[in-house]
């Protein structure tokens, strides 16, 4: 990692905690060259290519794979209980995979702060999940496993449809709110001795509803979805959920990420339009990339929507260190 990417690495951590993405202060020589060359590109040919892309059939490869994984994971919980196949027992907050403890990092944190006593099984389960998501990409938990994410994706389709019809507008909210909510819920857990966040966590509520049957708590989830449809796109995942931040921090150290290649990019910005966290894709804006290849930051959920939508293959999944060997 050169100095430009190192600076960006730390910059992106700050961006995850809520800072606005800024123009880079320095750009590497080769990237600089490409930026200059791009200004000289034949505008008409580029325009034609962009039009062709707009008319091309949409690709959903990664989205479909992700939905399949998300449904499989959640149904494995459900079926383990319903049909007593005992593969994945428990709920997303804590479970046992063929006997091995798995405990959600944020739930574990809440319990540890509230109860102030940590038993061995809790440490084992939390450690296992930590290693698991370190290997799998941190916030990939959000897009590949969290059942609320899927519901919110459907709500997002409705929201975007209403936006297109000019019936609603997306009210964006300060992203620092998520960091604030993480701190507030941590402090509340430690101070009150109740796992306050667990009482409203839509991830836990939906997961339990899928396994143990629906309850009134789903009304809260519904209220969140209504808010997202009519007021603010993906508001919970973008601005409020502390689970996302917890796994985002894990993602800082994860080798799985999306990689951006500057030279082939059109800069038409479609990836930013589909992205849950467009601030991580600021690098695709014309003139912003600090190097010819830029890894996307830790707040990225590795959902692959940008990979699907990119007309030039400039965005792709990458495993640090291994992709080169493959």
């Amino acid at each position, binding site marked *: 990692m050169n100095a430009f990417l190192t600076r960006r690495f730390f910059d992106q951590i700050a961006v995850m905690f809520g800072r606005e993405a800024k123009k880079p202060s320095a750009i590497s020589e080769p990237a600089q060259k490409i930026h200059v060359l791009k200004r000289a590109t034949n505008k008409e040919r580029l325009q034609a290519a962009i039009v062709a892309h707009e008319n091309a059939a949409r690709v959903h490869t990664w989205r479909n794979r992700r939905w399949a994984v998300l449904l499989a994971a959640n149904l494995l919980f459900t079926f383990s209980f319903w049909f007593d196949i005992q593969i994945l027992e428990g709920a997303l907050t804590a479970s046992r995979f063929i006997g091995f403890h798995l405990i959600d990092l944020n739930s574990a944190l809440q319990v540890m702060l509230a109860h102030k006593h940590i038993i061995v099984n809790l440490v084992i389960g939390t450690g296992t999940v930590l290693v698991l998501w370190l290997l799998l990409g941190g916030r990939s938990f959000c897009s590949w496993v969290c059942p609320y994410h899927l519901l919110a994706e459907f709500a997002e389709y409705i929201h975007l449809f209403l936006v297109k019809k000019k019936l609603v507008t997306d009210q964006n909210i*300060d992203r620092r709110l998520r960091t604030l909510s993480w701190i507030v819920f941590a402090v509340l857990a430690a101070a009150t001795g109740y*796992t306050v966040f667990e009482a409203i966590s839509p991830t836990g509520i939906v997961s339990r509803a899928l396994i143990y049957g629906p*309850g009134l708590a789903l009304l809260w989830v519904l209220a969140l979805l209504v808010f997202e449809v009519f007021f*603010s796109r993906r508001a919970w995942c973008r601005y409020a959920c502390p689970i996302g931040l917890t796994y985002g921090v894990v993602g800082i150290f994860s080798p799985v990420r999306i990689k951006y290649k500057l030279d082939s990019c059109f800069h038409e910005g479609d990836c930013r339009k589909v992205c849950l966290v467009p*601030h991580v894709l600021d690098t695709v804006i014309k003139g912003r990339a600090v190097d010819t290849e830029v890894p996307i930051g830790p707040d990225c959920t590795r959902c692959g929507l940008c990979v699907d939508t990119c007309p030039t293959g400039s965005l792709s999944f990458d495993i640090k260190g291994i992709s080169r060997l493959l």
Partner: protein
Amino acid sequence: MSEPEQPDNETKSETQKPATGKKPPPSRERLQQSRRRWLRTALLTGGVLGAALSGYLPLVYAQKKRLRPPGALDEKDFLSSCIKCGQCVQVCPVEAIKLADLVDGFGVGTPYIDAREQACDFSCDAVQCILACPTGSLVYKKPAFLGVRKGAPLAAAPILKAKEKDPEPTLNLTERIGVARLTRPEACLAIQGKGFKGQVRGASFKGLLRYMEVDRWKPIRVSDHPYDLAECDLCVRECPVKGAISIETVFAPDGSKRKSPVVHEPCVGCGVCEMICPVEPTCIVIEAREVWNT
């Protein structure tokens, strides 16, 4: 805040990229936008916090006490340590454990037992729910730093009637989860000297109970096991714990002798007596989290 970051401003900022380092003062419209954004942020913050803290309400109103699964820590510790995963629900062979809903506030997703509907009859023999708990909300023995309420510990490990002939007849349980109490003695069949014949709780009752003479490992429906008793002693007969309840001859307030169920110290609060009581509403109930007072 005033950084040109919104996607819709993107193209604009591209075309009119100022070469000078000086920033123009933000327009009135921009200021208004940012003010509105703050307002919305405050609104969402308030909304989320409000919803989160509304969990306090049921606590404030101190709703009815929930009977927690065996081995549960004291309520405050239980609520702080339960991770709401429901693994205890999954291992219970009679499905006695249910998860609480929204009305339980912070207790949403925490396990409880509705003894009248389905009591814990210890037909798992080993208190599986404690074994399943990943966070130590249900424990065989409390960690040293947690206080023990007077009267909550059991004098001795409870002897399971079903296991009485086994080399190890006891249950690994150190504290009670409640105590049975005869709340409506006037309606109790035993006190009235009445018998009971037929299905306890009717044909539609779904509750399960382990009957050793039927199958040690497969609890059956109570409705599939009709009784014919000259004198009702169901709460004593079906109590899974040895010496927890018996029919004794007691003196009534008017001085006359009569028979009555009497609860003893070994009672762990499992709730089988509450489930099996054939009178509607039940004459004997579990007082959740109650301790033994001598």
